[in-house]
């Protein structure tokens, strides 16, 4: 894992001191509220519905146990004893007081963490595959590159006041677990014909009110060209991106309106100017970072204790079948800890849960934790013989829910319960769906299914790429929920399609129940997943389930 250099440490401390000064200068009138706003945003501080919210970066989703304990400490000392893991590998505290925030940032700096550029019109926290360094299917660990991008983008003098926010994601595996095609820049590691590692560069993806799947701007970018090429893209966007309308300011609109070919020509011209400035020092720094991400020395031991428990305990077996993924070492596993017990707020973890996860990581998991964009916590390296002990410890704090990838493993934004932008509630919808299918004891019968819920058109809940997406809107003061089907956030990314008219708050969960009931009736076999059935049969049977067959002729006329 990466540990801060003296330079990083001094940088972060200096940044906290600057922010402390900015808070004071706001209070003494040196800064107007309008001027203070982007300065607090680029330090992670939002003004929400009820209070300030501090968004802390978990760069490329990686934490050690000391860092996790510190997140618990912040939750206890300055919040209400919990934190909320987001879809972009951040943790949010919903109740800090403005005057306390510099102290919170200092406490983060104590463990090599920060909240820099987690908001504002800046290059945001760079995200990566949450299985990085552990997945069986990986070409290379993407985190060293993500760290290099973090250093390059942090306080980049040209890019602190971009037209709009700018998000970069990196994956080192052909299986895209980082939703790279829905990012402003997505980087997918590939090898060229000569076997050299590089990147497929995807640009202009994004969800929000105008969802777009990113386009390939460069099929193979040599690894050493990464920083000058990214700088060329962002510099082009900074001058060309629209500033007249915030809803048309993201790079996806810039690329769409100018055309990919024109945009690429401009980027290539900038790249030619910039390339020479990077003499190779960045690659030396990268090599140093790579050395720090060397995998932990994996333990050799018998796995019998795991096999015995697996055979004897059906509840443990269900958890193991659902929450474990293949590790590159056969006697190890990747554990996904569900932070989504049915009925709880997706992504919320209490300080006690955080401390227990830290203890487990320190004792059994090579001191490593990850936060996934699906709002769960990952133990990336676990020897199988440690799984029974880990399971028992998790169960003691209600963290052993066997629902990863299933109907109750829902991504939901904070929605109207917390967010000033939201037009509808998300969390109670997620809670009710999860509780309902748990009552019906159908969760495992239904199998893999990604439900994603956003409480407004900004799509923080990624509803466009959910197999079932739910978008909460406001229709004349009444919550109304639109459903999309067939979305996909992986390497085969697709934006989901709207089924038709939306549903009221008290109708949405029964509607989801009808959809899933229809799937169970029409699937070819128990092995055909919801998304496979949808791809085979299309929208029509699901529309019938939602709106009734009698509505079909009306639909034909309407179309």
């Amino acid at each position, binding site marked *: 894992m990466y540990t801060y250099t003296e*330079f990083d440490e*001094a*940088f972060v401390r*200096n*940044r906290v001191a*600057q922010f402390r*000064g*900015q808070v004071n*200068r706001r209070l003494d*009138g*040196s*800064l107007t509220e309008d*001027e203070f706003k*982007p*300065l607090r945003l680029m330090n992670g501080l939002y003004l929400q519905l009820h209070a300030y919210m501090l968004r802390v970066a978990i760069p490329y989703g990686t934490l050690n146990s000391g860092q996790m304990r510190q997140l618990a400490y912040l939750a206890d000392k300055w919040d209400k004893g919990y934190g909320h893991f987001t879809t972009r590998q951040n943790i949010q505290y919903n109740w800090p007081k403005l005057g306390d925030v510099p102290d919170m940032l200092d406490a983060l700096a104590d463990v090599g963490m920060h909240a820099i550029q987690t908001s504002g*019109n800046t290059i945001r926290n760079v995200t990566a595959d949450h299985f990085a360094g552990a997945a069986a299917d990986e070409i290379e660990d993407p985190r060293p590159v993500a760290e290099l991008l973090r*250093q*390059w983008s*942090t*306080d*980049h*003098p*040209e*890019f*602190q*006041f*971009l037209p709009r926010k700018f998000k970069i994601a990196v994956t080192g595996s052909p299986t895209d677990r980082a939703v790279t095609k829905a990012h402003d820049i997505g980087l997918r590691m590939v090898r060229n014909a000569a076997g050299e590692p590089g990147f497929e560069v995807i640009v202009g993806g994004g969800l929000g009110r105008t969802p777009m799947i990113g386009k390939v701007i460069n099929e193979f970018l040599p690894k050493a060209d990464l*920083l000058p090429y990214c700088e060329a893209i962002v*510099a082009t966007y*900074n*001058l060309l991106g629209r*500033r007249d309308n915030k809803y048309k300011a993201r790079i996806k609109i810039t690329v769409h309106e100018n055309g990919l070919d024109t945009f690429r020509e401009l980027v290539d011209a900038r790249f030619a*100017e*910039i390339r020479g*400035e*990077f*003499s190779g*020092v*960045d690659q030396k*720094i990268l090599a140093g970072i790579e050395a720090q991400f060397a995998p932990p020395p994996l333990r050799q031991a018998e796995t019998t204790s795991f096999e015995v428990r697996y055979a004897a305990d059906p509840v443990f077996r269900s958890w193991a079948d659902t929450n474990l993924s293949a590790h590159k070492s056969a006697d190890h596993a990747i554990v996904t800890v569900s932070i989504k017990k049915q009925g709880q707020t997706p992504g919320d973890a209490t300080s006690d849960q955080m401390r227990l996860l830290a203890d487990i990581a320190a004792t059994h998991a090579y001191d490593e934790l990850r936060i996934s964009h699906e709002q769960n916590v990952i133990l990336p390296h676990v020897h199988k013989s440690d799984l029974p002990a880990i399971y028992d410890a998790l169960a003691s704090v209600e963290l052993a829910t066997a629902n990863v990838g299933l109907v109750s493993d829902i991504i939901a934004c904070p929605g109207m319960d917390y967010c000033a932008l939201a037009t509808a509630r998300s969390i109670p919808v997620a809670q009710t769906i999860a509780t309902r299918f748990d009552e019906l004891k159908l969760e495992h019968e239904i199998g893999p299914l990604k439900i994603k819920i956003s409480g407004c058109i900004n799509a923080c809940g990624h509803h466009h790429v959910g197999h079932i997406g739910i978008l909460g809107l406001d229709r004349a003061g009444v919550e109304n929920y639109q459903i999309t089907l067939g979305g996909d956030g992986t390497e085969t990314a697709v934006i989901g399609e709207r089924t038709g008219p939306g549903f009221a708050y008290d109708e949405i969960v029964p509607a989801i129940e009808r959809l899933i009931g229809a799937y169970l009736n029409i699937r070819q076999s128990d092995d055909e997943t919801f998304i496979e059935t949808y791809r085979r049969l299309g929208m029509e049977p699901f529309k019938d389930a939602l709106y009734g067959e009698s509505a079909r002729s009306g639909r034909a006329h309407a179309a």
Partner: protein
Amino acid sequence: MNIIVQDAGFTPETWSGAIATLDEVADESATAVDVPGDANPDDLADHLDRLALIRIGFASFADGRGFTLARRLRRMGFTGRLRAAGHVLADQYTMARRSGFDEVEIDADLAARQPEEQWRARADVHAHDYQSRLRA
């Protein structure tokens, strides 16, 4: 009276010549030009050798185009005086200098609200700079 901010602090205006508009830049007598944030830097390419001062306007501190414009002009070979003018905050002084600006021009109101020490606090432009580490 506008104030010029440099690393040493507030200084009086030392440019006494005329400053042409972008439309007038082709005039052979123009040695200084005002460039708005939405300008295309390529329009200046043929005139850079002749210009001693380019003043890039910041209509709002939140519009960051000026930083990239400055960097472009430096990459295009402009070696004269490069000035950011208008609504630029003390908090942005380091960014401006690192993007290629030599100085910032602000009005008296902003200078009163953000006095000299707030700018000098941001004048050590070489400290804590990731970019210079990655490019050196």
